[in-house]
């Protein structure tokens, strides 16, 4: 994967498959303290300890877990090659939390890339699910919560309406400009 944002899209897809109704994506980064953390949390069906082990090891994957495949191992590799790590906490019936920690200044750091596009596509392709996206830097932070948007839009207008998606895209862009010190 050329961008971490693509890994995020891939991992979030596992949450969709796990029948989550709410997926929270958090990116916390700091140049000052030299880290980038990504959390992907869902309220899906969760995994047993054995299943968690098997999604981390690509060669342990059996046909039953084939849907998980290489997604987690690729994300883990991206984290570990910077000197960071990946952890998965999961409870059957409660949900799963994937946390990847990166050392930002590492020469082997994969750029975060277009995370806004990832969030927008996830909303576009799963308009019945709710997403919360948090992004923070040394300068500031912002949150997009589709539950708030849904309150404004009402029941009849789906989040996947083109004009709504354009609004979401514009909002994400404006907010990230601010926390990256532009605008």
């Amino acid at each position, binding site marked *: 994967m050329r961008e971490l944002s*693509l890994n995020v899209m891939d991992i979030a897809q596992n949450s969709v498959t796990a029948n989550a109704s709410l997926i929270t994506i958090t990116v916390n980064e700091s140049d000052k303290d030299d880290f980038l953390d990504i959390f992907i949390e869902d309220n899906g069906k969760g995994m047993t300890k054995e299943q968690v082990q098997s999604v981390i090891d690509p060669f342990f994957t059996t046909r039953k877990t084939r849907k998980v495949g290489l997604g987690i191992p690729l994300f883990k590799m991206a984290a570990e090659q910077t000197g960071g790590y990946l952890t998965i906490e999961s409870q059957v019936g409660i949900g799963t939390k994937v946390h990847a920690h990166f050392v930002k200044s590492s020469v082997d750091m994969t750029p975060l890339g277009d995370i806004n596009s990832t969030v927008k596509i996830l909303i576009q392709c799963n308009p019945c699910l709710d997403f919360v996206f948090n992004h923070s830097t040394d300068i500031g932070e912002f949150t997009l919560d589709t539950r708030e948007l849904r309150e404004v839009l009402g029941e009849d207008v789906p989040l996947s309406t083109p004009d709504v998606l354009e*609004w979401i895209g514009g909002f994400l862009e*404006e907010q990230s400009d601010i926390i990256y010190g532009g605008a």
Partner: protein
Amino acid sequence: MKSLAELQAIRDKAKLELNMRHENPDAIRVLVGMATCGIAAGARPVLNAFTEEVAKRNLQDVTITQTGCIGICQFEPVVEIEIPGEDKVTYVKMTPEKVAKVVNDHIVNRNVVTEYTIGAYK
């Protein structure tokens, strides 16, 4: 600045449009393969290009969505187009540059772009 008030205006406009079209049985579906293989091969810009092209032409009743891995990872990014009453068409090794032609020729004018389909590669 994007405000919630702006979103309210979008809602009111969208509600009007919704009343006009309702559920159309002729809706066309564009399915972009977005499993690990598809994403790694560049499916995201392809999906974005479809969304933009469809919005630009203001095409109604075209749904763009994602699908999983259909087992031909070497041909990713893969895009399937389903038009009711017609055979499903599978486009392979898609790029954002190819999208405009597929939308124009296939979705609008109903001529399959044969040279981009899986049949042309096999």
